[in-house]
Protein backbone atom coordinates (compact mmCIF):
# COMPACT_ATOMS: atom_id res chain seq x y z
CA UNK A 1 0.00 0.00 0.00
CA UNK A 2 1.16 3.52 -0.78
CA UNK A 3 2.57 5.58 2.04
CA UNK A 4 0.17 7.45 4.34
CA UNK A 5 1.13 10.89 5.55
CA UNK A 6 -0.35 12.87 8.46
CA UNK A 7 -1.04 16.39 9.71
CA UNK A 8 -0.83 17.85 13.19
CA UNK A 9 -4.60 18.25 13.05
CA UNK A 10 -4.98 14.47 12.58
CA UNK A 11 -5.92 14.20 8.93
CA UNK A 12 -4.20 11.67 6.71
CA UNK A 13 -3.47 11.66 2.97
CA UNK A 14 -2.42 8.81 0.68
CA UNK A 15 -1.49 8.79 -2.99
CA UNK A 16 -3.50 6.37 -5.09
CA UNK A 17 -2.78 6.71 -8.82
CA UNK A 18 -3.39 10.29 -9.86
CA UNK A 19 -5.46 11.00 -6.77
CA UNK A 20 -4.75 11.64 -3.12
CA UNK A 21 -7.29 10.22 -0.66
CA UNK A 22 -7.98 12.15 2.53
CA UNK A 23 -9.48 11.13 5.86
CA UNK A 24 -8.95 11.39 9.62
CA UNK A 25 -6.45 9.31 11.53
CA UNK A 26 -7.21 6.26 13.60
CA UNK A 27 -5.90 8.18 16.60
CA UNK A 28 -8.42 10.96 15.92
CA UNK A 29 -11.40 8.61 15.69
CA UNK A 30 -10.40 7.03 18.99
CA UNK A 31 -10.24 10.44 20.62
CA UNK A 32 -13.61 11.50 19.21
CA UNK A 33 -15.54 8.34 20.02
CA UNK A 34 -18.57 7.26 18.02
CA UNK A 35 -18.95 9.38 14.89
CA UNK A 36 -22.64 10.00 14.18
CA UNK A 37 -22.55 12.58 11.38
CA UNK A 38 -20.22 13.66 8.61
CA UNK A 39 -20.91 16.83 6.66
CA UNK A 40 -18.59 17.23 3.68
CA UNK A 41 -18.98 20.88 2.77
CA UNK A 42 -17.25 20.70 -0.63
CA UNK A 43 -18.42 19.06 -3.85
CA UNK A 44 -16.73 17.37 -6.81
CA UNK A 45 -14.90 20.01 -8.84
CA UNK A 46 -14.40 22.34 -5.85
CA UNK A 47 -10.90 23.41 -4.87
CA UNK A 48 -9.52 22.35 -1.52
CA UNK A 49 -7.09 24.78 0.01
CA UNK A 50 -4.45 23.43 2.36
CA UNK A 51 -5.35 24.23 5.97
CA UNK A 52 -8.97 25.19 5.19
CA UNK A 53 -11.86 23.14 6.57
CA UNK A 54 -13.66 20.94 4.07
CA UNK A 55 -15.85 18.82 6.37
CA UNK A 56 -17.33 18.65 9.86
CA UNK A 57 -17.55 15.50 11.95
CA UNK A 58 -19.97 15.11 14.81
CA UNK A 59 -19.35 12.69 17.62
CA UNK A 60 -22.12 12.23 20.19
CA UNK A 61 -20.40 14.89 22.26
CA UNK A 62 -19.22 17.59 19.86
CA UNK A 63 -18.51 18.84 16.36
CA UNK A 64 -14.97 18.87 14.93
CA UNK A 65 -13.69 20.57 11.81
CA UNK A 66 -11.58 18.65 9.34
CA UNK A 67 -8.87 20.55 7.48
CA UNK A 68 -7.46 19.92 4.03
CA UNK A 69 -3.95 18.49 4.42
CA UNK A 70 -3.06 19.57 0.86
CA UNK A 71 -4.54 21.74 -1.87
CA UNK A 72 -6.23 20.22 -4.90
CA UNK A 73 -9.39 19.72 -6.90
CA UNK A 74 -12.00 17.38 -5.47
CA UNK A 75 -12.45 14.42 -7.81
CA UNK A 76 -14.61 12.14 -5.67
CA UNK A 77 -16.54 12.18 -2.39
CA UNK A 78 -17.07 8.99 -0.42
CA UNK A 79 -20.87 8.89 -0.14
CA UNK A 80 -20.70 5.50 1.55
CA UNK A 81 -18.95 6.91 4.60
CA UNK A 82 -21.36 9.88 4.75
CA UNK A 83 -24.25 7.40 4.82
CA UNK A 84 -22.54 5.12 7.31
CA UNK A 85 -20.30 7.13 9.63
CA UNK A 86 -19.50 4.13 11.85
CA UNK A 87 -17.03 3.22 9.07
CA UNK A 88 -14.81 6.00 10.44
CA UNK A 89 -14.60 4.24 13.80
CA UNK A 90 -14.09 0.87 12.15
CA UNK A 91 -11.55 1.72 9.44
CA UNK A 92 -10.52 5.37 9.66
CA UNK A 93 -7.41 5.08 7.53
CA UNK A 94 -8.82 2.64 5.00
CA UNK A 95 -12.39 2.41 3.69
CA UNK A 96 -13.41 5.62 5.51
CA UNK A 97 -11.57 8.06 3.26
CA UNK A 98 -13.72 11.17 2.83
CA UNK A 99 -12.62 12.96 -0.31
CA UNK A 100 -10.23 12.29 -3.20
CA UNK A 101 -8.37 15.18 -4.78
CA UNK A 102 -6.14 15.85 -7.76
CA UNK A 103 -3.26 17.54 -5.92
CA UNK A 104 -2.08 21.00 -6.95
CA UNK A 105 1.44 20.55 -5.64
CA UNK A 106 2.81 17.19 -4.50
CA UNK A 107 5.45 19.02 -2.46
CA UNK A 108 2.67 19.73 0.05
CA UNK A 109 2.15 15.98 0.41
CA UNK A 110 5.87 15.34 0.72
CA UNK A 111 6.15 17.87 3.53
CA UNK A 112 3.53 16.06 5.67
CA UNK A 113 4.58 13.83 8.58
CA UNK A 114 5.22 10.18 7.95
CA UNK A 115 3.73 7.55 10.28
CA UNK A 116 6.71 7.58 12.65
CA UNK A 117 6.82 11.36 12.94
CA UNK A 118 3.03 11.44 13.51
CA UNK A 119 3.26 8.78 16.21
CA UNK A 120 5.95 10.80 17.91
CA UNK A 121 3.88 13.99 17.66
CA UNK A 122 0.93 12.25 19.35
CA UNK A 123 3.09 10.86 22.13
CA UNK A 124 4.54 14.29 22.80
CA UNK A 125 1.01 15.65 22.90
Amino acid at each position, binding site marked *: MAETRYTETHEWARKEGEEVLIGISDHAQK*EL*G*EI*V*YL*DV*TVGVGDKLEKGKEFA*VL*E*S*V*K*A*ASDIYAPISGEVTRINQEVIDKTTMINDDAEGAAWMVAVKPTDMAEFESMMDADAYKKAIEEG
Partner: protein
Amino acid sequence: MTPFSQSKKTRLYERLIEAGGSMIEFAGYLLPVRYSGIIQEHLAVRSTAGIFDLSHMGEFFLQGKDAGRFLHHLLANDVLGLTIGHICYTPMLYSDGGIVDDLLCYRLGEEEYMLVVNATNIAKDDAWVCERLDAFGGEVEYSNRSDDYTLIAVQGPRAEEIVAQVTDIDLSSIKHYWWDKGQVGGQRALISRTGYTGEDGFEIYVDGESDRIPIWDGLVAAGKDLEMIPVGLGARDTLRLEKKFCLYGNDIDRTTNPLEAGIGWTVKLDKDDFIGREALLKIKEAGLSRKLVGFKMEDKAIPRKDYPIFAGGDRVGKVTSGTFSPSLQVPVGLGYVDIARSKVDTAIEVEIRGKRHPARVAKAPFV
Protein backbone atom coordinates in the same frame (compact mmCIF):
# COMPACT_ATOMS: atom_id res chain seq x y z
CA MET B 1 -9.41 27.92 32.31
CA THR B 2 -7.55 25.93 34.92
CA PRO B 3 -4.53 24.21 33.41
CA PHE B 4 -5.21 20.50 33.05
CA SER B 5 -2.54 19.61 35.61
CA GLN B 6 -4.20 21.73 38.29
CA SER B 7 -7.55 19.96 38.03
CA LYS B 8 -8.70 18.08 41.09
CA LYS B 9 -8.98 14.31 41.12
CA THR B 10 -11.82 12.49 42.83
CA ARG B 11 -10.91 9.86 45.41
CA LEU B 12 -11.85 7.21 42.86
CA TYR B 13 -9.55 8.62 40.16
CA GLU B 14 -7.28 5.57 39.97
CA ARG B 15 -10.30 3.32 39.55
CA LEU B 16 -11.67 5.49 36.75
CA ILE B 17 -8.36 5.31 34.89
CA GLU B 18 -8.13 1.53 35.39
CA ALA B 19 -11.65 1.24 33.98
CA GLY B 20 -10.48 2.96 30.80
CA GLY B 21 -11.85 6.45 31.36
CA SER B 22 -11.00 9.14 28.80
CA MET B 23 -10.49 12.07 31.11
CA ILE B 24 -11.52 15.66 30.54
CA GLU B 25 -11.60 18.71 32.77
CA PHE B 26 -15.08 19.51 34.09
CA ALA B 27 -15.95 21.86 36.94
CA GLY B 28 -12.34 21.84 38.10
CA TYR B 29 -12.14 18.04 38.20
CA LEU B 30 -10.57 15.46 35.96
CA LEU B 31 -13.51 13.25 35.05
CA PRO B 32 -14.20 10.58 32.44
CA VAL B 33 -16.14 11.80 29.43
CA ARG B 34 -16.48 8.14 28.42
CA TYR B 35 -15.06 4.68 28.99
CA SER B 36 -16.12 2.15 26.34
CA GLY B 37 -18.15 4.62 24.27
CA ILE B 38 -20.99 7.03 24.92
CA ILE B 39 -23.59 5.07 22.95
CA GLN B 40 -22.71 1.75 24.55
CA GLU B 41 -22.70 3.28 28.04
CA HIS B 42 -26.02 5.00 27.41
CA LEU B 43 -27.69 1.82 26.20
CA ALA B 44 -26.30 -0.13 29.16
CA VAL B 45 -28.04 2.24 31.58
CA ARG B 46 -31.31 1.94 29.66
CA SER B 47 -31.18 -1.86 29.48
CA THR B 48 -29.18 -3.08 32.50
CA ALA B 49 -27.08 -0.71 34.63
CA GLY B 50 -24.22 1.76 34.75
CA ILE B 51 -22.01 3.07 37.55
CA PHE B 52 -20.96 6.74 37.78
CA ASP B 53 -18.47 8.65 39.91
CA LEU B 54 -20.26 11.95 40.56
CA SER B 55 -18.00 13.18 43.33
CA HIS B 56 -17.71 16.58 41.67
CA MET B 57 -21.27 17.39 42.77
CA GLY B 58 -21.63 19.74 45.75
CA GLU B 59 -23.02 18.87 49.20
CA PHE B 60 -24.19 21.62 51.53
CA PHE B 61 -25.46 20.95 55.04
CA LEU B 62 -27.81 23.13 57.06
CA GLN B 63 -28.96 22.49 60.58
CA GLY B 64 -30.53 24.27 63.49
CA LYS B 65 -33.90 25.39 64.74
CA ASP B 66 -34.53 27.66 61.76
CA ALA B 67 -32.91 25.55 59.00
CA GLY B 68 -36.23 24.37 57.59
CA ARG B 69 -37.77 27.81 57.65
CA PHE B 70 -34.69 29.30 55.95
CA LEU B 71 -34.69 26.69 53.18
CA HIS B 72 -38.42 27.13 52.68
CA HIS B 73 -37.62 30.79 51.99
CA LEU B 74 -34.49 30.09 49.90
CA LEU B 75 -35.95 27.37 47.67
CA ALA B 76 -39.04 27.36 45.47
CA ASN B 77 -40.34 23.91 46.38
CA ASP B 78 -42.16 22.92 49.58
CA VAL B 79 -39.24 22.27 51.95
CA LEU B 80 -41.39 22.40 55.10
CA GLY B 81 -43.59 19.73 53.52
CA LEU B 82 -40.69 17.25 53.53
CA THR B 83 -40.76 14.55 56.15
CA ILE B 84 -37.50 13.04 57.45
CA GLY B 85 -36.25 10.63 54.77
CA HIS B 86 -37.82 12.53 51.91
CA ILE B 87 -36.11 14.51 49.12
CA CYS B 88 -37.34 17.18 46.74
CA TYR B 89 -36.01 18.55 43.47
CA THR B 90 -36.14 22.34 43.50
CA PRO B 91 -34.85 25.43 41.80
CA MET B 92 -33.12 28.12 43.87
CA LEU B 93 -34.13 31.49 42.46
CA TYR B 94 -33.00 35.08 42.28
CA SER B 95 -35.61 37.61 43.27
CA ASP B 96 -36.30 38.32 39.56
CA GLY B 97 -37.24 34.66 39.04
CA GLY B 98 -33.99 33.73 37.28
CA ILE B 99 -32.38 30.48 38.39
CA VAL B 100 -29.34 30.36 40.69
CA ASP B 101 -29.23 26.57 40.49
CA ASP B 102 -31.40 23.47 40.47
CA LEU B 103 -30.74 21.03 43.27
CA LEU B 104 -31.93 18.23 45.50
CA CYS B 105 -32.96 19.00 49.07
CA TYR B 106 -32.73 16.06 51.50
CA ARG B 107 -34.41 16.25 54.89
CA LEU B 108 -31.91 14.37 57.03
CA GLY B 109 -33.35 14.99 60.48
CA GLU B 110 -35.73 17.06 62.51
CA GLU B 111 -33.58 20.16 61.99
CA GLU B 112 -31.06 18.94 59.43
CA TYR B 113 -30.95 19.18 55.63
CA MET B 114 -28.54 18.39 52.80
CA LEU B 115 -28.53 20.25 49.48
CA VAL B 116 -26.92 18.59 46.46
CA VAL B 117 -25.91 21.23 43.95
CA ASN B 118 -24.35 21.32 40.50
CA ALA B 119 -20.55 21.10 40.47
CA THR B 120 -20.23 24.11 38.20
CA ASN B 121 -22.22 26.21 40.69
CA ILE B 122 -20.66 25.25 44.03
CA ALA B 123 -18.80 28.54 44.60
CA LYS B 124 -21.71 30.68 43.39
CA ASP B 125 -24.29 28.75 45.42
CA ASP B 126 -22.11 28.83 48.51
CA ALA B 127 -21.84 32.62 48.28
CA TRP B 128 -25.60 32.92 47.63
CA VAL B 129 -26.56 30.73 50.59
CA CYS B 130 -24.22 32.69 52.89
CA GLU B 131 -25.58 36.03 51.66
CA ARG B 132 -29.21 35.01 52.03
CA LEU B 133 -28.56 33.42 55.40
CA ASP B 134 -27.02 36.67 56.66
CA ALA B 135 -30.12 38.52 55.55
CA PHE B 136 -32.47 35.89 57.04
CA GLY B 137 -30.85 35.50 60.44
CA GLY B 138 -32.14 32.80 62.79
CA GLU B 139 -30.45 29.76 64.20
CA VAL B 140 -28.93 27.99 61.20
CA GLU B 141 -25.55 26.33 60.95
CA TYR B 142 -24.32 26.02 57.38
CA SER B 143 -21.35 24.10 55.97
CA ASN B 144 -20.17 23.37 52.46
CA ARG B 145 -18.75 19.84 52.59
CA SER B 146 -18.44 19.27 48.84
CA ASP B 147 -14.74 18.37 48.96
CA ASP B 148 -15.33 15.82 51.69
CA TYR B 149 -18.00 13.87 49.83
CA THR B 150 -17.85 11.08 47.31
CA LEU B 151 -20.99 10.39 45.28
CA ILE B 152 -21.44 7.15 43.37
CA ALA B 153 -24.53 6.50 41.27
CA VAL B 154 -25.81 3.14 40.06
CA GLN B 155 -28.51 3.65 37.47
CA GLY B 156 -30.59 1.31 35.34
CA PRO B 157 -33.32 -1.30 35.59
CA ARG B 158 -30.97 -3.73 37.39
CA ALA B 159 -29.57 -1.17 39.81
CA GLU B 160 -31.49 -2.45 42.82
CA GLU B 161 -30.36 -6.03 42.22
CA ILE B 162 -26.75 -4.84 42.10
CA VAL B 163 -26.73 -2.46 45.06
CA ALA B 164 -28.66 -4.97 47.19
CA GLN B 165 -25.67 -7.32 47.05
CA VAL B 166 -23.42 -4.91 48.93
CA THR B 167 -25.72 -3.25 51.45
CA ASP B 168 -27.64 -4.11 54.59
CA ILE B 169 -30.26 -1.49 53.73
CA ASP B 170 -33.64 -2.80 52.57
CA LEU B 171 -33.66 -1.04 49.20
CA SER B 172 -37.18 -2.12 48.34
CA SER B 173 -38.39 0.10 51.18
CA ILE B 174 -36.74 3.21 49.69
CA LYS B 175 -39.27 4.84 47.42
CA HIS B 176 -38.47 7.22 44.56
CA TYR B 177 -36.99 10.42 46.08
CA TRP B 178 -36.45 8.94 49.55
CA TRP B 179 -33.19 8.03 51.27
CA ASP B 180 -31.86 5.77 54.01
CA LYS B 181 -28.57 5.25 55.83
CA GLY B 182 -26.60 2.08 56.42
CA GLN B 183 -23.61 0.04 55.32
CA VAL B 184 -22.54 -0.17 51.68
CA GLY B 185 -19.48 -2.26 50.91
CA GLY B 186 -18.82 -2.38 54.65
CA GLN B 187 -18.75 1.42 54.93
CA ARG B 188 -21.25 3.94 56.27
CA ALA B 189 -23.19 5.65 53.52
CA LEU B 190 -26.42 7.40 52.66
CA ILE B 191 -28.40 5.94 49.75
CA SER B 192 -31.20 7.67 47.90
CA ARG B 193 -33.40 6.43 45.10
CA THR B 194 -32.61 9.35 42.81
CA GLY B 195 -30.74 10.01 39.60
CA TYR B 196 -30.37 12.00 36.42
CA THR B 197 -30.96 9.26 33.87
CA GLY B 198 -34.70 8.68 33.99
CA GLU B 199 -34.07 5.07 35.01
CA ASP B 200 -34.53 3.47 38.39
CA GLY B 201 -31.36 3.79 40.41
CA PHE B 202 -29.50 4.95 43.48
CA GLU B 203 -27.11 7.66 44.52
CA ILE B 204 -24.69 6.75 47.29
CA TYR B 205 -23.13 9.51 49.40
CA VAL B 206 -20.00 8.78 51.39
CA ASP B 207 -18.19 11.22 53.64
CA GLY B 208 -14.54 11.46 54.70
CA GLU B 209 -14.96 9.04 57.58
CA SER B 210 -15.62 6.10 55.28
CA ASP B 211 -13.31 4.47 52.75
CA ARG B 212 -14.74 4.96 49.26
CA ILE B 213 -12.66 2.39 47.41
CA PRO B 214 -14.34 -0.74 48.87
CA ILE B 215 -17.73 0.72 48.01
CA TRP B 216 -16.80 1.29 44.36
CA ASP B 217 -15.06 -2.09 44.13
CA GLY B 218 -17.96 -3.87 45.79
CA LEU B 219 -20.48 -2.34 43.44
CA VAL B 220 -18.35 -3.06 40.37
CA ALA B 221 -17.96 -6.69 41.43
CA ALA B 222 -21.69 -7.01 42.17
CA GLY B 223 -22.56 -5.56 38.76
CA LYS B 224 -20.18 -7.65 36.73
CA ASP B 225 -22.52 -10.56 36.04
CA LEU B 226 -25.38 -8.18 35.35
CA GLU B 227 -23.48 -6.35 32.63
CA MET B 228 -23.11 -3.11 34.55
CA ILE B 229 -20.42 -0.87 33.04
CA PRO B 230 -18.85 2.44 34.11
CA VAL B 231 -20.47 5.50 32.54
CA GLY B 232 -18.92 8.89 31.85
CA LEU B 233 -20.14 12.46 31.53
CA GLY B 234 -20.95 12.04 27.83
CA ALA B 235 -23.64 9.44 28.41
CA ARG B 236 -24.81 11.22 31.56
CA ASP B 237 -25.67 14.11 29.24
CA THR B 238 -27.41 12.02 26.55
CA LEU B 239 -29.37 10.08 29.21
CA ARG B 240 -30.71 13.23 30.86
CA LEU B 241 -31.39 14.92 27.53
CA GLU B 242 -33.61 12.07 26.30
CA LYS B 243 -35.66 12.57 29.49
CA LYS B 244 -35.75 16.38 29.12
CA PHE B 245 -34.04 16.87 32.48
CA CYS B 246 -32.68 20.42 32.50
CA LEU B 247 -28.92 20.99 32.60
CA TYR B 248 -27.88 24.15 34.42
CA GLY B 249 -25.82 26.38 32.14
CA ASN B 250 -27.60 24.99 29.08
CA ASP B 251 -31.37 24.76 29.51
CA ILE B 252 -31.68 26.87 32.63
CA ASP B 253 -29.63 29.72 34.02
CA ARG B 254 -29.94 33.20 35.50
CA THR B 255 -31.81 34.43 32.39
CA THR B 256 -34.49 31.72 32.39
CA ASN B 257 -37.31 31.10 34.82
CA PRO B 258 -38.69 27.75 36.00
CA LEU B 259 -42.11 28.32 34.43
CA GLU B 260 -40.81 28.60 30.87
CA ALA B 261 -38.31 25.80 31.54
CA GLY B 262 -41.20 23.41 32.19
CA ILE B 263 -40.34 22.83 35.85
CA GLY B 264 -43.21 24.92 37.18
CA TRP B 265 -44.33 21.87 39.20
CA THR B 266 -41.37 22.47 41.52
CA VAL B 267 -42.43 26.03 42.25
CA LYS B 268 -45.01 26.32 45.02
CA LEU B 269 -46.48 29.74 44.31
CA ASP B 270 -49.02 29.19 47.10
CA LYS B 271 -46.21 29.27 49.69
CA ASP B 272 -46.49 32.60 51.50
CA ASP B 273 -42.89 33.54 50.85
CA PHE B 274 -39.82 32.42 48.92
CA ILE B 275 -37.16 34.24 46.92
CA GLY B 276 -38.47 34.84 43.40
CA ARG B 277 -42.15 34.35 44.24
CA GLU B 278 -43.28 37.92 43.45
CA ALA B 279 -41.49 37.89 40.09
CA LEU B 280 -42.93 34.51 39.12
CA LEU B 281 -46.45 35.59 40.04
CA LYS B 282 -46.06 38.54 37.66
CA ILE B 283 -44.58 36.35 34.92
CA LYS B 284 -47.45 33.91 35.33
CA GLU B 285 -50.03 36.66 35.19
CA ALA B 286 -48.49 38.21 32.06
CA GLY B 287 -48.29 34.78 30.39
CA LEU B 288 -45.17 33.03 29.11
CA SER B 289 -43.51 34.41 25.99
CA ARG B 290 -41.40 31.32 25.30
CA LYS B 291 -41.09 27.71 26.36
CA LEU B 292 -38.42 25.04 26.56
CA VAL B 293 -39.40 22.34 24.07
CA GLY B 294 -37.93 19.12 22.79
CA PHE B 295 -37.44 18.68 19.06
CA LYS B 296 -36.30 15.98 16.67
CA MET B 297 -34.21 16.69 13.61
CA GLU B 298 -35.57 15.43 10.32
CA ASP B 299 -32.13 14.84 8.84
CA LYS B 300 -28.85 13.65 10.35
CA ALA B 301 -27.39 17.02 11.38
CA ILE B 302 -26.76 17.44 15.11
CA PRO B 303 -28.16 20.50 16.88
CA ARG B 304 -25.90 22.09 19.50
CA LYS B 305 -26.19 24.75 22.18
CA ASP B 306 -26.89 28.30 20.91
CA TYR B 307 -27.78 27.34 17.34
CA PRO B 308 -30.65 29.59 16.15
CA ILE B 309 -34.14 28.16 15.60
CA PHE B 310 -36.39 29.44 12.81
CA ALA B 311 -40.03 28.89 11.86
CA GLY B 312 -41.71 30.26 8.77
CA GLY B 313 -38.62 32.33 8.01
CA ASP B 314 -38.60 34.06 11.41
CA ARG B 315 -36.10 33.54 14.15
CA VAL B 316 -38.16 32.02 16.98
CA GLY B 317 -35.61 30.76 19.47
CA LYS B 318 -32.38 28.95 20.15
CA VAL B 319 -31.09 25.52 20.99
CA THR B 320 -29.97 24.96 24.59
CA SER B 321 -28.92 21.29 24.37
CA GLY B 322 -28.54 18.87 21.50
CA THR B 323 -27.09 15.50 20.75
CA PHE B 324 -27.49 12.27 18.87
CA SER B 325 -30.04 10.21 20.80
CA PRO B 326 -28.56 6.75 21.33
CA SER B 327 -31.99 5.26 22.12
CA LEU B 328 -33.81 6.75 19.12
CA GLN B 329 -30.79 6.88 16.77
CA VAL B 330 -31.77 10.37 15.59
CA PRO B 331 -30.50 13.82 16.55
CA VAL B 332 -32.62 15.52 19.23
CA GLY B 333 -32.46 18.77 21.10
CA LEU B 334 -34.00 21.12 23.62
CA GLY B 335 -34.49 24.80 23.03
CA TYR B 336 -36.54 27.85 23.86
CA VAL B 337 -39.06 28.85 21.19
CA ASP B 338 -41.76 31.51 21.04
CA ILE B 339 -44.86 30.24 22.77
CA ALA B 340 -46.76 30.27 19.44
CA ARG B 341 -44.29 27.71 18.04
CA SER B 342 -44.13 25.46 21.07
CA LYS B 343 -46.87 22.96 20.17
CA VAL B 344 -45.84 19.37 19.46
CA ASP B 345 -45.43 18.73 15.71
CA THR B 346 -44.71 22.37 14.83
CA ALA B 347 -42.25 22.47 11.93
CA ILE B 348 -39.08 24.40 12.79
CA GLU B 349 -35.61 24.77 11.35
CA VAL B 350 -32.29 24.70 13.16
CA GLU B 351 -29.45 26.70 11.66
CA ILE B 352 -26.32 24.57 11.69
CA ARG B 353 -23.12 26.12 10.33
CA GLY B 354 -25.07 28.61 8.26
CA LYS B 355 -27.55 26.13 6.80
CA ARG B 356 -31.10 25.55 8.00
CA HIS B 357 -32.05 21.96 8.74
CA PRO B 358 -35.64 20.75 9.17
CA ALA B 359 -36.84 19.68 12.62
CA ARG B 360 -40.12 19.26 14.44
CA VAL B 361 -41.21 20.03 17.99
CA ALA B 362 -41.61 16.66 19.68
CA LYS B 363 -43.14 15.23 22.79
CA ALA B 364 -40.47 15.26 25.51
CA PRO B 365 -39.26 13.23 27.40
CA PHE B 366 -38.27 11.63 24.10
CA VAL B 367 -38.14 8.12 25.57
